[in-house]
């Protein structure tokens, strides 16, 4: 069967970018990427089996509390984490802040997260991720956001969820939206796909690729609100290929044990018996926030559409 849009030719990516940038992200699949604020936490994360760490000065829960403008982290702090662990180190830049991205690339950060958790720097444009050698991950709430970011060069997508809340409801909403929109594309004919592409403001080839292959052309991870092993397994069962955990680990009563439990839950996401075992006696989870009581202007997921 000859395919018009084969799996290994991704619209907008050169063959080299596909294997080196997207290939890097594929190595993280089935793993947990943990937010850490210093070398000590990074070591705990690595010891627990994290496949990568996200270095940032404040976890999202504290960014919420602290208020003000949230920016990229101090390079010195990121360097200390790079020295402390052997797993990949990621770091965040503000949406559209390509100079923060240049700084992270110069530091050889392994992956850059252009993140809605920080205060956006550009209300019109995201970073042109194609000009960087470093792979980027970006957040999405639906297929349109995902494909626009991929078109800009993102090598990995994560659903946004609502970071720093310990509430998985938004992550679920975004993953369900994304997966059902992908399924919808599968039944469309060419004319409808053309219309969809213009509606989503992305090239036809990208939409046609997704329609034909039934998935995003880059790894699809989940983030924003995961606090328990069951939350992590839920996101995996809904279609995530790996999970980012932000405040959920180091804002909980026993970070070490919770980190290990979430790592194991992601590997065995379809085995309730293992989930029983890892969910026992984890101590206090982070205190969550009910999204419905949250003022609209405190929601981070609406940033960068």
């Amino acid at each position, binding site marked *: 069967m000859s395919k018009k849009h084969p799996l290994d030719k991704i619209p907008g990516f050169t063959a080299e970018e596909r294997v080196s940038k997207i290939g890097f992200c594929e190595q*993280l699949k*089935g*793993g947990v990427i943990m937010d850490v604020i210093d070398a000590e936490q990074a070591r705990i994360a690595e010891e627990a089996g994290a496949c990568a760490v996200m270095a940032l000065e404040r976890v999202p829960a504290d960014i919420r509390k602290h208020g003000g403008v949230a920016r990229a982290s101090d390079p010195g702090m990121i360097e200390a984490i790079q020295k402390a662990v052997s797993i990949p180190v990621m770091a965040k830049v503000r949406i559209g802040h390509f100079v923060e991205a240049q700084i992270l690339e110069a530091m050889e950060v392994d992956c850059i997260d252009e993140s809605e958790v920080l205060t956006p720097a550009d209300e019109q444009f995201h970073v042109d991720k194609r000009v960087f050698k*470093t792979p980027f991950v970006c957040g999405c709430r639906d297929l349109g956001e995902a494909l626009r970011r991929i078109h800009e060069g993102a090598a990995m997508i994560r659903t946004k969820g609502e970071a720093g809340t310990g509430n998985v409801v938004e992550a679920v909403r975004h993953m369900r939206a994304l997966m059902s929109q992908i399924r919808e594309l599968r039944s469309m004919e060419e004319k409808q796909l053309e219309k969809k592409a213009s509606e989503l403001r992305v090239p036809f080839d990208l939409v046609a690729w997704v329609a034909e292959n039934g998935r995003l052309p880059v790894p699809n991870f989940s983030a924003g609100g995961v606090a328990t092993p069951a939350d992590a397994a839920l996101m995996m069962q809904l279609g995530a290929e790996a999970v980012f955990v932000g405040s959920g680990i180091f804002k909980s009563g026993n970070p070490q044990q919770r980190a290990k439990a979430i*790592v194991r839950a992601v590997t065995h996401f379809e085995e309730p018996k293992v989930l029983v075992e890892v969910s026992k006696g984890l101590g206090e989870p982070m205190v969550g926030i009910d999204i419905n009581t949250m003022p609209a202007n405190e929601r981070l997921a609406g940033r960068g559409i």
Partner: protein
Amino acid sequence: MEDAPLVGVLALQGDFAEHEAALAAAGVRTRRIRAAADLGGLDGIVLPGGESTTMLKLLDVEELWRPLGDALRSGVPVFATCAGMILIADRVENPNQRSYGLLPITVVRNGYGRQYHSGTFALVSTALPAGTTGTFIRAPRITSVGAGCEVLARRGDDPVLVRRGPVLAACFHPELATGLHPVVAMFVEAVRAYVRRSAAARA
């Protein structure tokens, strides 16, 4: 294809799905290895890329360290890429960590640098077709090769594809290539030969 060989792919973390796709394209059946019970009746074992520290932790938690070690030493063809190669090396540096010691090589983790230095490079080899390349992602670097271990390909002066008996290991990721990479084909050929030998021995 009921008679297609069955290869187990360690599926604790990493790019096991890419290995499965590459093997399926070569006409081989695959099974995910996540517990000791998954190790029976395999005609080959793949240790994929990913994070070796994560895999080590999970091998312990799943009580797979010993049963997998026994399976790897049983004489079935083994194919290890990147993190998988780190798991079976004799000695691991940067930092030092535990390994199976299946291949007499010393590897330095992230020996070519961080992700920024990842990319596709030409391979120098008499065992592979001219022009064959390999994609290196935060790749381990082999700094010494002991007796009995063949070097099948190099990147510059560094050995990057090595073999001893049934065990084949690459610093790079043939499973990510467009189309069938010659190194995947080499492993699949070894698996088919193993199946033929086993059948002959039974008969």
